[in-house]
């Protein structure tokens, strides 16, 4: 018997492909947002409301991930934004390779912003880097104030947490303060946006933050390109 030290990250292959995706997105100048949540929290509704507010300003695209159906892609198509549906069959998350393969069938040339809507699941998608610039999580207030503590990883990984369906708070009895505090406990740096896709409340704050975040990243990329060109 002999012992071989390995020291390799188990998700190494995913991370390599995610890095290739990231390079590809950077080279095309596309800012990529990975949108995660449990099923039914309102990811597609958030995308619809976001798209309506920014489509005159940016060229947009959406990759949808679901186990089955093209229902979500159809909703994005209806807004006149190009969309591609990945159906995973039984797999509970998107991985970097699925996104890589989608790019063979879905052109991203000329896009400014690509949303990737992950499979609805509060656990698994948080572990798989897709090559995105920004991870965003949608959480519907009716899911309960204690969930950030029970499922902390996704909350911690997300840079922004969108607390959707605040219009239902009077019926669900969930305390928004308690929920926000629980999010901050597991993710102290998270940007939190209470909102309702039904009434439109709070959506503009999130959209303004997203545009600032995107422009900051774009500036950084052009700056590093400029610095690279100068040093050559």
């Amino acid at each position, binding site marked *: *018997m*002999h*012992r*071989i*030290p*390995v*020291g*390799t*990250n*188990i*998700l*190494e*292959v*995913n991370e390599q492909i995610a890095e290739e995706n990231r390079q590809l997105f950077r080279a095309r100048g596309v800012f990529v947002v990975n949108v995660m949540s449990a099923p039914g929290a309102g990811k597609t509704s958030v995308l619809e409301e976001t798209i309506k507010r920014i489509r005159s300003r940016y060229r947009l695209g959406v990759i949808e991930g679901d186990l089955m159906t093209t229902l979500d892609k159809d909703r994005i198509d209806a807004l006149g934004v190009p969309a591609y549906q990945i159906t995973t069959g*039984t*797999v*509970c*998350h998107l*991985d970097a390779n699925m996104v890589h393969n989608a790019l063979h069938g879905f052109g991203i040339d000329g896009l400014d912003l690509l949303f990737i809507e992950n499979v609805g699941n509060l*656990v*698994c998608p*948080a*572990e*798989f880097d897709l090559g995105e610039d920004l991870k965003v999580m949608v959480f519907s207030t009716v899911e309960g104030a204690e969930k950030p*503590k029970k499922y*902390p*990883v*996704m909350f*911690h990984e997300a840079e922004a947490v969108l607390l959707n369906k605040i219009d239902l708070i009077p019926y669900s009895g969930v305390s928004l303060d308690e929920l926000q505090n629980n999010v901050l*406990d*597991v*993710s*102290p*740096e998270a940007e939190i946006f209470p909102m309702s896709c039904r009434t439109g409340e709070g959506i503009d704050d999130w959209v303004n933050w997203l545009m600032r975040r995107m422009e900051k990243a774009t500036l950084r990329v052009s700056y590093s390109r400029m610095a690279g060109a100068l040093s050559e």
Partner: protein
Amino acid sequence: MHELAITQGILEIAEREAAKHNSVCITRIKLRIGEFTGVVREALEFSFEVIKHGTLAENAELEIEVVKLCKRCPSCDEVFESKDQFDFFCPRCNAPAEIISGREMQIEYIDLD
């Protein structure tokens, strides 16, 4: 059930290492899994038992070390473990802390025959 995808990753890496060392029999795979990952230990063990058949790890045992979630405060350099839940604030100065361990998903070593 992403444990199945993770187990496939484990087997691919272990078989690659075994082949590199001209072995066809892996007897043990030692993992380090952080407690702040979405990985369920029992699901990982179950997936491994299901898919190891017909691989070089057919007779291998899976050993899992759970790595504690540990954080460091960027303001005062205090290093601390979570006492309850997953509190991310420094117990000394209450500043938001950074994770320094607990997110691992790593194969530490394999034993070959």
